[in-house]
């Protein structure tokens, strides 16, 4: 095994099913040993991409490489890649031990017994080794699926919505567990999910996919703080998007006109080319102050807001603020207890730092990527 370069590379990968293009011209590099997430709504092509890496789907065009080895046309059972399937796909007629040992035995590893027991130990299932999968809980089955794939020391481990079937609490636990195991054994993980929180918690790098293409790729913080499309702005967390006219792009701050009020956005955070642009600002970045109060942190101020809804959610309070032009903006405030809550009808001014806002191309749908958790499935 050439240790120096085991990066997974996808080059101009395209997959068509009849007239439908599931994945379009996708190129990316997953560095060896990293935790990479493909994030997107159902039907965005993320699972198809994963299946092409696993060899379960043949690409229409393009190449899949691990290091220098072209594995595009290699049969699945000849690839140094293992998969944790969404349904786990545990063999129901075999015991946990036999399930985990399956890959080693197929490759003729002679000391598979000890290795299997060690792996079962690692995922803390030693007492269950002789049971059948149906006798285990969902979380335990999930760990068997993980052990069964990891024991083969794959160049790349593919995880297809591995936590989808677990309840919320167990999912949180497994997220931490997965991250721990990945750090310990230093294997490249490629994780497909529709759950943005899951992707942000675990991955070093996230590629947000939509309609078969990658909308944006980067570290979780980078994607969240500086999204380049409305889809990313809405799919990862929530954003307020306000239509503005671009006034001045010469300085270090781009100046926009928002319904008569001038606002600045740091130039590196502007991803708009035209005369109009969506100004984006995350709800928790906005400070709501009593109208006319000069105590504003940043230079960006929108005046004339009126509180129309107050939702107390414990750690924070979520306000809806109606602006003079009719749009309602979301504002989240930490419940530090330092000041009293606003009430419906209170007049407020909103302010934020120019380094927190972002500008997006006006051609895009402001609602792209905005969906309820059920729609994401």
């Amino acid at each position, binding site marked *: 095994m050439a240790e120096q370069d085991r990066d997974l590379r996808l080059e101009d990968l395209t997959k068509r099913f009849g007239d439908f293009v599931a994945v379009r011209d996708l190129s990316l590099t997953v560095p060896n040993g990293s935790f990479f997430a493909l994030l997107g709504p159902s039907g965005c092509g993320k699972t198809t991409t994963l299946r092409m890496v696993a060899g379960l789907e043949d690409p229409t065009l393009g190449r899949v490489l691990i290091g220098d080895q072209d594995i595009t046309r290699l049969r699945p059972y000849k690839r140094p890649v*293992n998969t944790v399937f969404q349904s786990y796909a545990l063999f129901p007629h075999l015991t946990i031990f036999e399930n985990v040992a399956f890959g080693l035995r197929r490759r003729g590893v002679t000391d598979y017994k000890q290795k299997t027991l060690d792996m079962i130990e690692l995922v803390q299932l030693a007492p269950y080794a002789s049971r059948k999968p149906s006798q285990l809980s969902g979380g335990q089955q999930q760990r068997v699926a993980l052990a069964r794939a990891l024991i*083969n020391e794959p160049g790349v481990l593919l995880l297809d919505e591995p936590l989808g079937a677990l309840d919320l609490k167990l999912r949180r636990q497994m997220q931490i567990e997965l991250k721990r195991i990945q750090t310990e054994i230093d294997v490249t993980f490629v994780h497909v999910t529709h759950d943005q929180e899951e992707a942000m918690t675990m991955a070093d790098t996230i590629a947000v996919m939509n309609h078969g293409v990658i909308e944006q790729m980067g570290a979780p913080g980078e994607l969240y703080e500086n999204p380049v499309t409305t889809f990313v702005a809405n799919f990862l967390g929530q954003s307020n998007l306000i239509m503005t006219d671009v006034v001045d792009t010469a300085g270090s701050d781009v100046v926009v006109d928002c319904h008569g009020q001038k606002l600045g956005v740091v130039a590196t955070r502007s991803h708009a080319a035209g005369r109009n642009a969506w100004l984006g600002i995350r709800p928790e970045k906005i400070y709501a102050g009593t109208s006319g109060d000069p105590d504003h942190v940043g230079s960006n101020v929108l005046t004339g807001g009126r509180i129309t809804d107050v939702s107390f959610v414990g750690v924070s309070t979520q306000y809806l603020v109606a602006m003079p032009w009719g749009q309602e903006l979301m504002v989240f405030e930490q419940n530090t207890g330092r000041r009293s809550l606003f009430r419906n009808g209170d007049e407020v001014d909103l302010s934020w730092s120019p380094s927190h806002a972002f500008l997006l191309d006006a051609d895009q749908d402001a609602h792209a990527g905005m969906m309820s958790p059920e729609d994401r499935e």
Partner: protein
Amino acid sequence: MTAGEVSPLPVEPGAAVDGETAKRRGWGWLLLVPGMLYLAVFFVFPTIQLILTSLYDPSGSFEQGYTLTWHVANYGDAIKSTWHLFVRSFEYAGIATVICLLLSYPLAYAIAFKAGRWKNFLLVLVIAPFFTSFLLRTLAWRTILSDQGPVTSLLQTLHILSSDGRLLATPVAVIAGLVYNFMPFMTLPLYASLDKVDYRLVEAAGDLYASPFTGFRKIVFPLAIPGVVSGTLLTFIPACGDYINAELLGTPKQYMVGNRIQSAFLTEHNYPLAASLSLILMAVVVLMVVIYVRRVGTEELV
């Protein structure tokens, strides 16, 4: 075979049963009543009658009538005079079952995994022979295998058969008839079992370094064992008792137990012999089935 599926909710003694559940269980039993009544009239009663008949005094005759003398020796006499027919029956049925399995497995596999939108059409083709009578179809085989027929001529041309060799009136013809007539009973349960195998397991096996053949051997085949068991039983059991194929495609040299039972009942009117032969056949088949199912391991079947 299906008793396990049909049996109602087991009533555990001492289990706390609330009123609602108790009511539902009562209804469950009621659903069994029509079937039970039918079986009582057309199965239990005739079986008892058959057992009694097998114990009649063999010196009686159709004209003078029989008397029930609990003549157990009927069984010994029956075995002594016809044991070679039993051996032949199990041999023919066994060979036919194996051939059915070998022919049906690829067929059922193809229908389950490879047929795509042709699936239902192919299934209809499998059962299509049932639209014509069993007797007619077997008679057709006489023509197919006849001495001047195409199959015989072809085999003679290829020197697989000698120039005066024949197919009709040989064990080959009888077994071929059995295979043909019972193949749907093998194919359908096999298909049902294979179709239930989750294809994602096959993908998972491939992902874990199993070649397609190994994946089949380690995953698909073991999971579809229930289909093999029910298919072989559904083929072997009726084939053992069959007499039409031997009658129409064979000669007395190829006769099976069924032929002897048929002639004892309908031609010789030797009811005690016929009844004891029937019961022996039944007992031996049940015994073989029990051993077979035990060997294959019933827990794996569910």
